[in-house]
């Protein structure tokens, strides 16, 4: 039995179904991310676990205990809100102590635990400050300390890093993961940022329009996307219409834009129309005689550690990402040869285009 279990969790607002029979198991001490675009139901799911929304159907079990009948204030969960929701009229230490006060923890014990929590988030020196005089990153740490000091069974993070600037966000990703490990608390995070979810989580849950689309470890979700939606949402993808003409345990054959190419082994789809997915970082720029297809560079963008090329090819436009190895990259207008290994291709069912 998993530590946190969602069973057929459903939330309807009138005729709109925000979360549709979501079933999920979260193991103890793991860090799980609910990932998806806005409106996919991830926040509603978190709100139901927190107790701020009542599920229309389904059950939430935490450590074997059914949470349905327990009001939010008795669930004892640590929650970090997107806006941090600090008490602006209290000092950092008073903010952190609030949950302990509510639990009638004695003064000496309270002081000790507040100090320990502030130490965990490296804020001991700012205990007497008011939140207004702090930076976004510091407020984030206060919110985290306030949620962790009550030693919750479950930590809920609602878009915790979305209000921070890019550099600070990367630092906080590592920091948050460190704190979560040190505190040893099972964590459920909601985010729309795929790199955040991949970097921080043990398991990533991809949601779309109220449905759980895929749940797996970050590497697996990225490498083995189960659908075009997941593939497009996690990182960049080149997607082409293709026809699967043969597939067995040793390989497969695909036809794209009238050319027959080798595909990966182990494709279980029946022959017919499929989608071919190729990650930009798996495409190599090669000598013309070794190329599978040729392309002409349309656009070249420099990111510092890598280049992104956009090339016109017989398949259609293709994105190619190249590590910056200190050499000048092909320029706009250059003809380049492109190649890849057959097992880097993903073959997925074709999906109807969405508005």
């Amino acid at each position: 039995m998993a530590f946190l279990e969602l069973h057929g969790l459903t939330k309807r607002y009138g005729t709109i179904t925000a979360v549709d029979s979501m079933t999920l198991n979260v193991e103890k001490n793991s860090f799980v991310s609910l990932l998806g675009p806005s409106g996919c139901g991830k926040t509603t799911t978190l709100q139901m676990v927190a107790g701020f929304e009542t599920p229309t159907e389904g059950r939430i079990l935490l450590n074997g205990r059914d949470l349905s009948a327990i009001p939010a204030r008795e669930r004892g969960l640590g929650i970090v809100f997107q806006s941090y929701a600090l008490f602006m009229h209290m000092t950092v230490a008073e903010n952190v102590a609030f949950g302990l006060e509510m639990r009638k923890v004695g003064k000496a014990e309270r002081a000790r635990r507040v100090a320990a929590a502030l130490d965990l988030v490296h804020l001991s020196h700012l205990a007497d400050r008011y939140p207004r005089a702090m930076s976004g990153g510091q407020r984030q740490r206060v919110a985290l300390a306030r949620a962790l000091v009550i030693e919750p069974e479950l930590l809920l993070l609602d878009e915790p890093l979305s209000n921070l600037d890019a550099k600070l966000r990367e630092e906080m990703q590592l920091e948050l993961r460190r704190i979560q490990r040190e505190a040893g608390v099972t964590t459920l995070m909601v985010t729309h940022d795929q790199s955040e979810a991949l970097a921080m989580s043990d398991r990533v849950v991809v949601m779309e329009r109220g449905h759980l689309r895929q749940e797996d470890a970050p590497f697996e979700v990225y490498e083995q996307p189960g659908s075009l939606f997941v593939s497009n949402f996690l990182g960049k993808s080149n997607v082409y219409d293709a026809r699967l003409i043969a597939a067995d345990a040793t390989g497969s054959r695909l036809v794209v834009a009238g050319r027959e190419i080798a595909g990966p082994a182990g494709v279980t789809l029946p022959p017919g129309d499929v989608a071919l997915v190729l990650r930009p970082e798996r495409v190599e720029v090669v000598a013309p005689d070794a190329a599978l297809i040729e392309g002409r560079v349309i656009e070249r963008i420099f990111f510092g550690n890598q280049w992104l090329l956009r090339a016109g090819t017989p398949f259609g436009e293709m994105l190619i990402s190249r590590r910056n190895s200190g050499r000048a990259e092909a320029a706009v207008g250059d003809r380049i040869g492109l190649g890849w290994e057959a097992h880097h291709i993903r073959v997925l069912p074709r999906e109807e285009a969405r508005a």
Partner: protein
Amino acid sequence: MSETRRNWLLSAPGLVLFGVLLFVPLVMTFILSLNSFDFYGGIKPDIGPGNYFAVLGDGYYYTIFGRTFAIALVTTVICVLIGVPVAWFMLKMTPFWRSIMVLVVIGPLLISVVVRTLGWAIILGNKGIVNDALIHLGLIERPIKMMFTSGGIVVALVHVMVPFMVLAVWAALQRADPAAERAAESLGAGTVTIFRRVVVPQALPGILSGSLIVFSMSASAFATPAIIGGRRAKVIATTVYDEFMGTLNWPLGAAIAMLLLVSVVVVMLAWNRLVERRVEKVIG
């Protein structure tokens, strides 16, 4: 044109308005308050502090000043006690009910104070609804005196002033982060604790500004004390009126009016300084 000159020129319309409508009448009233008066000769254009000595040397006026500020203070406190919860409930309502509640709260402001106060006179009178009901229920034998008392004035003033408090507190609560209440809830706080520890501190700037409005308006209110209090429960504003229109002693009336203005300003400044120190480091 220099920056300073242009700034002065741009604010000229406002300054003219301010000068003509506030500063000039105020100075004229002040000069009037320094003139002297006798029943046969009328107002004499001499200058002297005689009227102020007359007011400050007479215990009768101290009673009136004391009553006025007691009424204003009690009205303010009751308005806070009513206004803060009402504003909080309004914030929690669905948009539909909230817009209806805003109308309900602001509605009384659309009706003349005189009309509203006359309504209270009907309710509070010796043969009014409240007394009639209590007598018929057998709870009392003789009517409770509510008209022409300070208590009656407070009741009617609260009715007039509550909207100002609700709106001030509401504005403050709207600026606050609604997630803070949820955070308190998730940390184990009940509704009463959330209200006391989170909502009231968030509402504090609104309570402070609302108190200033309600206190100063109650201290200088005229129509409500005139109708409910009459000649028996006199406040400063009705005393000024009587001096001007009854005794025709304009200079004395002007002196009392100046003293009202000064004392209200002093109370407001003191209040402001008191709370500013407490609030500024938190609210910024």
